C-alpha cells in the first residue's frame, strides 16, 4: 500500500512581507524573523476550498489519466465545506468526472486532517471496500482572518492538495496513533458562520469594512495555548507512533510535521531532538496551509530527493480540536 501520487495547487495571489510591512508598520526583515514566512497564497474572491482541491486533483488526474477509471473512494478534507448538504466530495466527484461506483466522504478536519484521512484510506483498502483512493485536502484560512490580525495573516495561506492511496507491492502505511482534547476547542476556533452561531445583520454591520464582511466567520487563536498544546502532545505522539510501529527513533529517515509555524516547528524539533537533516519543512514560501501542509511538504521532499523510495517518514498532524494523529509511511 502506498501514496502513489501527490499534487497540489496554490492560488495565484500572493501576500508578501512587503505588503504586510506597509499595512502593519513592521519591517519585512522583522516579519520574516518573527514568522519564518516570505509569502502566502491567498484565494481569489470567487474561490473556495473545494475549488483549490479540485484544481489539485485535476492536475493529478491530467498527469495520470488512467487513474480516473480506478478511483473508487473519494475523501475530501476541509474546514470549509461548500454546503451543509450535499457532501462536497460528491460535487467534486462530479466535477472530476469520476466513475459512478465510487464512494464519497467529507472530513471536516483541520491540521490533523491529512493523517486522519490517510488512516481512513488505509482502512478502506484493507477492508477491500476500495482499491484506489483519491484523497483531496483544501483549506482557505484567509477567508476567516480579520485584516488587522497580523499574526494570523502572516502565518496562514490557502492551498489544495490531492494524493492517491492504493495497494502496491512496495511501500507501507503503518499503524496510526490518535488523540483528542476538546477542552482546547476555544483556543483555535471559527465560531460564526456555523449552526451554533450564525452570521447575522449585527455581524455584517460590524465587519462591513472587511473584505467579504467576514461572512465565513472569524478565526480566533490563542497562540500561547496552541504552542503549549503542541509542546505537550507532539513529543509524546512521536514516542507513541514509534512504539506502535515497533520502530526506534533512529529508524526514521525523515520527520514531516504539520507546518504550523516556524516557531512551533523549531521548538518541536529541539524538544524531540530530531537532527536537522531528518526534519523536513516547506513553510517559508506558503505558510501554514492547514490540512494541505503535510502532502505539500511530502511533494517537495520527494522532489528534492530528501524522501526516497523505501524511506521511512513519520508524519504528524496536530491542531484545532485539539486533535492530533501520527503514523509512519514507508514511502
Amino acid at each position, binding site marked *: 500500500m502506498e501514496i502513489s501520487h501527490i499534487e497540489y495547487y496554490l492560488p495565484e495571489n500572493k501576500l508578501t512581507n512587503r505588503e504586510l510591512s506597509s499595512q502593519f508598520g513592521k519591517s519585512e526583515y522583522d516579519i520574516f524573523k518573527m514568522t519564518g514566512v516570505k509569502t502566502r497564497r491567498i484565494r481569489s474572491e470567487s474561490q473556495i476550498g473545494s475549488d483549490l482541491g479540485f484544481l489539485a486533483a485535476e492536475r493529478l488526474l491530467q498527469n495520470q489519466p488512467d487513474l480516473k477509471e480506478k478511483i473508487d473512494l473519494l475523501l475530501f478534507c476541509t474546514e470549509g465545506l461548500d454546503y451543509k448538504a450535499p457532501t462536497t466530495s460528491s460535487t467534486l466527484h462530479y466535477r472530476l468526472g469520476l466513475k459512478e461506483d465510487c464512494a464519497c466522504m467529507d472530513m471536516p478536519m483541520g491540521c490533523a486532517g491529512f493523517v486522519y484521512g490517510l488512516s481512513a484510506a488505509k482502512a478502506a483498502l484493507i477492508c477491500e471496500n476500495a482499491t484506489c483512493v483519491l484523497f483531496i485536502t483544501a483549506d482557505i484560512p484567509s477567508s476567516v482572518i480579520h485584516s488587522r490580525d497580523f499574526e494570523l495573516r502572516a502565518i496562514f495561506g490557502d492551498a489544495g492538495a490531492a494524493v492517491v492511496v492504493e495497494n502496491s507491492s512496495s511501500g507501507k502505511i503503518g499503524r496510526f496513533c490518535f488523540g483528542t482534547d476538546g477542552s482546547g476547542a476555544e483556543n483555535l476556533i471559527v465560531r460564526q458562520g456555523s449552526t451554533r452561531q450564525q452570521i447575522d445583520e449585527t455581524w455584517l454591520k460590524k465587519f462591513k469594512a472587511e473584505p467579504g464582511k467576514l461572512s465565513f466567520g472569524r478565526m480566533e487563536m490563542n*497562540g500561547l495555548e496552541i504552542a*503549549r498544546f503542541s509542546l505537550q502532545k507532539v513529543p509524546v505522539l512521536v514516542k507513541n507512533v514509534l512504539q506502535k510501529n515497533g520502530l526506534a527513533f533512529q529508524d526514521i529517515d525523515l520527520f514531516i510535521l504539520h507546518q504550523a509555524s516556524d516557531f512551533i516547528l523549531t521548538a518541536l524539533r529541539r524538544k524531540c531532538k530530531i537532527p536537522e537533516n531528518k526534519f523536513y519543512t516547506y513553510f517559508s514560501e506558503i505558510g501554514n496551509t492547514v490540512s494541505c501542509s503535510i502532502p505539500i511538504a511530502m511533494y517537495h521532499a520527494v522532489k528534492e530527493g530528501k524522501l526516497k523510495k523505501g524511506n521511512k517518514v513519520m508524519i504528524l498532524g496536530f491542531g484545532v480540536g485539539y486533535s492530533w494523529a501520527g503514523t509512519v509511511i514507508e514511502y
Partner: protein
Amino acid sequence: MEINDLIKYIESEFDELPRGTLQPETSFREIEGWSSMHALLLIALVDNHYDVLLTGEELKNAVTIRDLFLIIVNRKS
C-alpha cells in the same frame, strides 16, 4: 539550578540581545522589541531546558526574570 543559566539561555535565544544585557530584576517585557512571539519563545525555552511548561497565567503574573526563575524552581520542587 542557577538564575544566571536562565539569563544566558534567554540572551542566547533572543539573538538581538548582547550578552550581559539582562539582570535578575530585568522586566522581560521591557526587552527591546518584545512581542507575543517572544512570550512563545520563552515558554519553549523554559520547556526545553527545565522540562517545565509554563502556563499562560504563570507567564502573565511574572514580571522579572527572577519571577520566572522562582516559578521554575517551584515547579521543579
